[in-house]
């Protein structure tokens, strides 16, 4: 990260499902003010949105940090949820452990992690069962 890096922090509230997705709206506004191109903004806000929803559904919320510098955008999502037992399996399209109550809202299609990978240039998942998950994503300019 260079000296020019700008950091945004969001508390993702796990108690309130209706507010899920707010951080991605806020980050989109800031990126637009920074003059980031629309396609990059679209990729970041979709990846961020999916990650936020995941934290709310599976981990009772968590922290979202977005760091912007002249080369690109890094998104770090960390939670103290149940962790992901099998990351390869979780990355498969259609695999989901989402409960029925959120499936009825249209979530839980098993596209969250695959979409996050698809819309970013780089993604790493660190997860310990019973401790939590940290996902880092990068979108380069």
């Amino acid at each position, binding site marked *: 990260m260079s000296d*020019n890096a700008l950091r945004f922090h969001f508390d993702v509230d796990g108690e309130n499902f209706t507010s899920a997705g707010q951080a991605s709206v806020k980050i989109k506004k*800031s990126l637009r003010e*920074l003059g980031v191109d*629309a396609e990059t903004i679209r990729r970041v806000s*979709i990846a961020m949105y999916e990650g936020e929803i995941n934290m709310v559904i599976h981990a009772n919320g968590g922290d979202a940090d977005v760091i912007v*510098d002249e080369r690109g955008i890094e998104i770090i999502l960390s939670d103290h949820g149940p962790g992901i037992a099998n990351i390869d399996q979780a990355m498969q399209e259609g695999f989901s452990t989402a409960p029925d109550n959120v499936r009825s809202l249209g979530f839980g299609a098993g596209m969250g992690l695959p979409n996050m990978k698809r819309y970013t240039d780089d993604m790493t998942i660190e997860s310990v069962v019973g401790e939590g998950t940290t996902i880092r994503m990068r979108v380069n300019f």
Partner: protein
Amino acid sequence: MNSYEHSVCLDLSKCTGCTTCVTHCPTEAIRIKDKHAVINADRCIDCGQCIRVCPHQAKRAHYSKIEAMDAFKWKIALPAPSLYGQFENLDDVDYVLQGLLDIGFDEVFEVAAAAELVSAYTRRYVSRPDVKKPIISSACPAVVRLIGLRFPSLYENVFPMLPPMEIAASLAKERAAKAHPELKPEEIGVCFISPCPAKVSYVTQGFGSYQSRVDVVVSMQDVYAHLIGVMKREEAPTPVSHSGMIGVSWATTGGEASAIFNDSYLSADGIENVIDVLDEIETGKLPQVEFIELNACDGGCVGGVMAVENPFIARARLQTLRRYLPVSQNFPEEEDKTAIPDSFFFGERPTFEPITRLSDSIIESLHMMSEIQRLTEELPGLDCGACGAPTCRALAEDVVRGHTGLDDCIVRMYEQMRAEKEARTPKNPPVK
């Protein structure tokens, strides 16, 4: 766009410097400076929201008086379809059209009639395989300006067709010139009866390389006052109206979009909703639709600040009025059912300097934004507007852009004074 002259303006003598307009402006274009409002012309989209909310009637729209038409030998009125919704118990549009002739116009050309042609060509345009979708209507000038300034990535989606007002002006002039060959072109004047200031600015400023064909724009409220005196309901008017259900429906939200005759459309109104929808389109979260109609005013054009009646009452009246009208009364003449005449398109689009961007350089933007973040933290976060900016965040941005200083914040000043006072006062010995 520094030279852009807006219809929305301020009456200095009435402005008290209250912050009502500042906090309601959807583009944060207004600040209080030296105890009165100042509109930033680069940011204003002429939506008329400040006129609507000003408790002192200090905000108003600049437009011509009907007497401006005296300069022309042959005077043509172009009533917007929203005009028809302003009158109580009206069951026939012809009463309004007759009224316009009675107050001194020589001829009437309904904008609703032109709207039906625009709708017919829109259907052709939507079915072309090579056009950028979703197509966003260009009929509301406030929305088009908003897109140019705040949603530059969607600017290419703006429908390049001229609005019905312009088509009506061209066709009216052509028709009059043909019927009255003795008239010189400059002797024929067309007068648009407008529900909103955005249309006034469109006419005076043009749109990019396109110069408006309308000569004079008057306010619907003024014309209403003239019409009320002459509209006689006793005798049946001469049947001259030549518009159908589609044309009349353009006055309200959904009228333009539903006339494309397929279900793949979205229509929204109210400037905040419009901004939300544009946000969603920009993020790509919108369901696949082919056509998007967006109106800055609640209810559509009937909600314009220069209209007389409440928009929802006007809409109910229009429903009654159009009940027995044919679907459309205006049809393209071409043999080729896919053709759209060039005269229906505007030329080069105007260029906009996007207002959302802090700087052209990403490094500079990053610096500015971290400074804005830092200053916002320092400010009280009350968003009280007392400094003259709509929010603490907006003041921080104004400071970073070099427009003003942090001392504008009176809450911060007060806290500093109190801290100084406490520092000066010796601590009292504890009371036993």
